[in-house]
């Protein structure tokens, strides 16, 4: 006993800093890679990359992707998967465009602001419904999440064509009031840059970006600080253990899918605000981009590890790499797909190398090492 207490006290009184956890390390790697990539792009490609507006363009174009990538991060941490998110995004954007055009039901006498707010409620409602059904099937009836959400994806995509066979678009001539609300942009003069005539054009950011950033922050807090968030990690780490530790595993899995589909609903509305159109091909393969972003941001598909800050940078990395590909003169769309694939491959390789190396006795700086206690 005495010998033990001595070594124990040493271990505790030494108070050395805990080694960085795998999740944090992977996130740091993705942030580092994003910054390096962007700086290299600024130096070598110049052009748009030197202007702050470039960053805001990336955010504007990918706000919905940030949200569904957060959704995927939650379900993946929970050891599950959700491939219905992009389908829900497309369905929600179609339904809300229809509603705003007054085709769902005539909306006379309603102010434009109320109509947009109602559309947002409908979007969230559709997300909730998907979440309730999918969550119940997965958590309480114990059906494979992949299959349930695959069905959900087909269902959502099919519903779009039932709702409206032809693509819809909000236009200035028909819905001027709604368009000004939906396409409102926040202008930041101090981040502006001069155009060819020397006039300073302010940097513009869409409202959807604020929603996306809010989602990232809120989910980050939920995952880190709340009981619900920690239960997500526990269930993803080892479901059987979580059960014996007294966690309500079924409810936790249900909640993960509920939140995921809810976020997909919000993402659909954000997508509509950016695109102002409803189309069966909207956000095609968005779920794959979301999964890729999560993984690049350090979420493990096997569950239990990940965080949304990393996911945010995952989305940024994917978007930036696509821009870089185009800016370097490879304009054909397949180059973007190929580089995305290569990127994903590289990250997964990097992750597994880093993770396996940490377990071994290698010459690593102490903060990188996982020492046995």
């Amino acid at each position: 006993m005495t010998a033990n207490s001595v070594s124990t006290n040493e271990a505790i009184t030494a108070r050395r800093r805990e080694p960085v956890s795998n999740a944090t390390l992977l996130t740091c790697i993705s942030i580092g890679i994003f910054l390096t990539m962007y700086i290299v792009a600024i130096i070598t490609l110049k052009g748009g990359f030197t202007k702050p507006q470039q960053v805001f363009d990336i955010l504007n174009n990918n706000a919905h992707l940030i949200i569904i990538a957060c959704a995927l991060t939650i379900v993946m941490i929970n050891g599950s998967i959700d491939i219905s998110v992009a389908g829900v995004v497309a369905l929600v954007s179609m339904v809300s465009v229809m509603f705003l055009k007054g085709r769902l039901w005539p909306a006379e006498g309603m102010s434009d602001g109320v109509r947009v707010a109602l559309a947002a409620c409908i979007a969230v409602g559709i997300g909730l419904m998907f979440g309730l059904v999918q969550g119940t099937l997965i958590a309480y009836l114990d059906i494979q999440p992949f299959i349930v959400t695959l069905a959900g994806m087909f269902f959502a995509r099919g519903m779009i064509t039932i709702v409206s066979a032809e693509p819809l678009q909000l236009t200035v001539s028909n819905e001027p009031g709604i368009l000004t609300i939906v396409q409102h942009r926040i202008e930041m003069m101090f981040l502006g840059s001069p155009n060819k005539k020397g006039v300073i054009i302010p940097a513009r950011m869409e409202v959807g970006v604020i929603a996306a950033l809010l989602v990232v922050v809120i989910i980050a807090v939920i995952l880190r600080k709340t009981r619900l968030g920690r239960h997500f990690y526990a269930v993803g780490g080892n479901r059987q253990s979580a059960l014996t530790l007294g966690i309500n595993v079924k409810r936790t899995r249900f909640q993960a899918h509920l939140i995921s589909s809810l976020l997909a609903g919000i993402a659909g509305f954000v997508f509509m605000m950016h695109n102002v159109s409803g189309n069966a091909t909207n956000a095609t393969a968005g779920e794959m981009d979301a999964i890729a972003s999560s993984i690049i941001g350090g979420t493990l598909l096997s569950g239990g590890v990940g965080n949304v800050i990393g996911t945010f940078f995952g989305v940024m990395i994917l978007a930036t790499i696509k821009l870089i590909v185009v800016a370097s003169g490879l304009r054909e769309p397949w180059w973007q797909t190929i580089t995305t694939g290569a990127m994903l491959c590289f990250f997964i390789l990097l992750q597994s190398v880093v993770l396996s190396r940490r377990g071994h006795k290698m010459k690593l700086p102490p903060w990188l090492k996982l020492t046995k206690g």
Partner: protein
Amino acid sequence: MGEILLTMRGICKSFPGVKALNNVDFTLRAGEIHALMGENGAGKSTLIKVLTGVYPKDTGEISVEGQPIAIHSPQDAQKNGIATVYQEITLCPNLTVAENMFIGRNENLVVDWGKMVKRSDELLKNLGIPARPKQQLGSCSIAVQQMVAIARAVDMNCKVLILDEPTSSLDDKEVEMLFSLMRDLKSRGVGIIFVTHFLEQVYAVSDRITVLRNGELVGEYVVEELPQVELVAKMMGKELEGLSDLDKNRGKSSAAGESLYEAENLSSSEAKPFDFQIAKGEVNGFTGLLGSGRSESVRAIFAADKVTGGKVRMKGKQLNINTPYQAMKAGIGYLPEDRKRDGIIADLSVRENIILALQVMKGFFHPMSKAQMSGFADEYIRALEIKTASQDTPVGSLSGGNQQKVILARWLLTHPEYLILDEPTRGIDVGTKTEIQRLVLKLAEEGMSITFISSEIEEMLRTCSRLIVMRDRKIVGELKGEELTQSNVMRTIAGGGKENA
């Protein structure tokens, strides 16, 4: 010794066709470490599962501190202060040590990391557990993870702590660490039920021993009053004095032929280094209690587990055997212990199961003709008297003994020079048992070397000319010729026998 903490009276539990527990009593006092011992099928784990609410009991009553209690679920058990730490870690490796101690215990909606870390730090220091609260659990050794699980139980005010095989994957130093924690808890008045296979560990920490056999209570003993030899005898159900040493007229196949297989310091991920050799035409066996490492050793020979070191010679030629395929190529066959899991493929026909190993040996690019396969299958179905409707019958529908013969046929077809049979007679009827024993002796006469493992000592004594005795993962003795008696085997297992020459 403190007052009585837990009593179980007249516990019965039946499963379809088996009486797993028959009128078993168990008493645990506060501040004692009580070892629960028994061989495979003795009912230890059933008793533990009844106590923790995993299985409902048929009859009997359980009371804690004199109050009768009803246990219907693991949660009920926990509420009554009964905590279990299982052999496999039931914590989450991706969370921190502190989280693992407090998660799932009516936490608040928002996690207070500061308070949690502080409380777990106090608890870890108090119990002398060498872990840091913010450390990821997965980066701790298995022993420390187990101790964290114990700390969690202690913090939940457990009175009865059940440790189910806690030491089976720990090294000596870690075992010592765990023991000092157990003694510490004991001094705090916790009653500990210690389930293990390791005899020496029982004597190192326990105060009392309860022995079960075949679902019945053999007795409760104070450790000092029960020598190891007697404990082994009680577990095996043999009276030491009454042992008649019959069966002296075994086959004299022990005549030392030329050495066929030799291993030097062979070790695997599961087995500690050991030396072993077998001569041509010899039948030898590994014996020992369950968990003594006998199966692990033969699995190392066949490379069924990852081989980690050692030299292997076959007919004097040095060989590398790192995969079962290489072992098969070298002429070694292996009948696994658990034929349902490792052996038969229940949905394939008798013929396909028989052909399997030979096909692997030939490689998949050299298919055999249908006629050839039927020929082989027919030959062995007749030779081994396998009772099957036809060779197309799925193996799963055959009786246990006939399934075993199918696997035997599979290996005989590859004409191995050395065959390892791990528990070939378990769960099959007496008639088939003797048939298989006779077959083993016949094959040996024809020049095959055979290593035979069985839980039944009589069977081993009848078939083997040399017995290697194992205890606590080590070879502790070797018996041959005149020494092959039941009492000698037991003495060696218990630690009083002849040392390895």
